[in-house]
């Protein structure tokens, strides 16, 4: 890496400016709100310190939502990365019809959350769902499986739908990372390692490790702060089985008119997300932050 003596403003300003505008003021405002009592039906907005945070953490709703979000992230993010990498490796081969598979694999990506939700509702629905119909006609089951309406199965169903929407991106990024691998390295690996698995572990994986970290971090963030898809599929139900933290924020702010509490939940989410990210980047170190020699 080369060193520059001054901060390269012109290079960075176009990227930093929009982000600054969209983050500094809003985050500052949200932080301020979390430290004051901002309830629409009550006059004034007095400073209340960490009161909102304490109230929020004392409610059982918060812990339900936290647990749901953590479990969801814990299963969804690695699944996306693992499946994405496997599919990407598979698609590196040229076989008859590989072009078609490479195009079809992109489909889940082009859909907004609300649409994916409708499709997966159709797959999982208890009365007119396709999955139950197929399983029934194959005589595997005779009662329909309550994919969406059992508090135990609903989280699994939304996880499957969520993973489905994120796979294409993981595949694309992994394929892009794989393409940057020096062809000599690949040839050498083919000669040295008989087993595909060993080849992957000792040669490919280290090369694409930074990309995998990026994918894991991105997917963890997306899963932890997710909203659209799960909301459209189950609205947090049945009961509170799929209520995520993001719903809690929305509900506190807009339905219960308590923006202070909503913002407090948001910042707790920030803390947890930051912890997650640090944990992930520590566990899988990469040279993203520079300093090593290329």
């Amino acid at each position, binding site marked *: 890496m080369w060193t520059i003596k001054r901060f390269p403003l012109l290079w960075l300003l176009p990227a930093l400016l929009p982000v600054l505008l969209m983050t500094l003021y809003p985050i500052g405002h949200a932080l301020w709100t979390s430290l004051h009592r901002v309830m629409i039906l009550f006059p004034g907005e007095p400073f209340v310190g960490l009161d909102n945070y304490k109230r929020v953490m004392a409610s059982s709703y918060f812990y339900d939502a936290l647990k749901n979000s953590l479990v969801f992230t814990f299963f969804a993010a690695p699944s996306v990365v693992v499946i994405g990498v496997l599919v990407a490796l598979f698609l590196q081969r040229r076989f008859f019809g590989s072009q078609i598979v490479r195009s079809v694999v992109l489909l889940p990506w082009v859909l907004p959350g609300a649409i994916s939700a409708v499709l997966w509702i159709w797959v999982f629905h208890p*009365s007119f769902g396709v999955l139950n119909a197929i399983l029934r006609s194959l005589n595997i089951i005779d*009662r329909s499986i309550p994919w969406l309406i059992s*508090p135990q199965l609903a989280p699994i169903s939304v996880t499957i739908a969520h993973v489905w929407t994120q796979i294409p991106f993981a595949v694309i990024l992994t394929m892009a990372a794989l393409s940057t691998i020096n062809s000599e390295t690949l040839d050498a690996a083919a000669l040295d390692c008989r087993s595909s698995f060993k080849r992957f572990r000792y040669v490919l994986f280290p090369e694409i490790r930074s990309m995998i970290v990026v994918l894991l971090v991105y997917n963890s963030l997306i899963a932890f702060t997710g909203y659209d898809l799960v909301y459209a599929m189950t609205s947090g139900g049945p009961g509170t089985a799929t209520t995520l933290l993001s719903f809690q924020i929305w509900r506190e702010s807009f339905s219960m008119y308590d923006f202070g509490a909503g913002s407090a939940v948001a910042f707790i989410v920030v803390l947890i997300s930051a912890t997650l990210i640090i944990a992930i980047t520590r566990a899988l170190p990469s040279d993203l932050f520079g300093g090593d020699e290329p």
Partner: protein
Amino acid sequence: MQLKKVLLAMSMATGVFAAQTALAGEDITLEFVVWNYSLDTIQDNIKIFEAKNPGIKVNLTDYTWTDYQDSLILRFRSNTQTDVIYGGQDWLPAWASAGFVAPLNDIAPPDELSALSDDIAGFALSDMTVDDELYGLPYYADTISFIYNKKILDDAGIAVPRTWEEVTAASLKLQASGMERPFVYELNQELPNFFDAFVAQSYGRGAELFDADQNAVFADPENGAYKQLEWLADAYSQGLIQPETHESKIIPAMNTGNHAFTVVYNYVLAALNNSATQPLAGQFALALMPGAENSTLGFSKFYAVTAKTAADPERAEAAWKFINFMAGGDYTIAKRWAVEKGLGFGQLPLYDDSDVIEAWGKWVDVSTLNQQAATAKAGVWTEWGGVWSAYFRPLLAKAMVGEATVDEVMQEGAQRWNELKEQFANR
């Protein structure tokens, strides 16, 4: 000389004309915010209004029902220009107290208003009144009803249930002969009507959730609402209930013929029986809400004016003209909703209108409906009701699916209600 006089007269006339147009000023554009039910009908109504009222334009903004309240709060907080809105009876006390909406007295001539309010049905009138002030005119008023599939019941030899025990018995019988979850239920903790439906069922049993002083009394195991929640949790645990997130999924579900009962708004019955799309159209009917009293919840959604607009005389006048057109006058628009869409109405004269009766006869038994409407009661709506309902609905859902006990939920709900009541009293 003649010519000069003529020219002078002409220029004077032009001058007066120009002055008049200048005085008339620019068009006023009213911002009308609604939820997205039947936007094409609304647009058409707006067109008719604009044609009759040159100088007033109406700009329509819509949100989905689930996002409506939240989007409106955002608008109010940010002072986005909003003039006439759809209001809901459960939000009204809070919005009135926060100063978001103004009483109609602020914008309407008093005798016109009183003549119109005389024509409004009981539960609708109470829903739109806060502190003896009327805040809206009915957009649509309805009851929540118990719907069943006639053909399924007839084929199975089951009589129309009149108590909740009979509903259980009927459902178990249907389940035994292969129907997996006979009762479809809109179980969505994010929707206010999830709570409304619960209240409706409690009213069927003749129960009240709050006493005359607005204290919560439903935590008592003898209270009908308590018993109804027990019934729901029980039915769910026996696999008799299939939850759906929205009425738009209930319609296809019921039309698969795999379910026999549901509790929905009446216009959903009109949609269920629509032969244009539904394979089982005509098989669905309304029955009186099961329970000792067969009463149900009646409610009204209405047109309201924002306080900001009411304070501006020009806009206030335009807003009143618009509200009066949509919900008052000779009730043409209200009738249109009733006939074309099966939307209930809060204006009493329409009950006797032959066009309405004829149109409605196609999808519901009008005499049963009138019977139900006659026993419908309004709900108890308070300033903290909306906040409390958002808190209580997830609890209700948890109790139904068995994640919490009925007692826990009712106790917590009552406690929170009483807490909030005190908080708001001491503001």
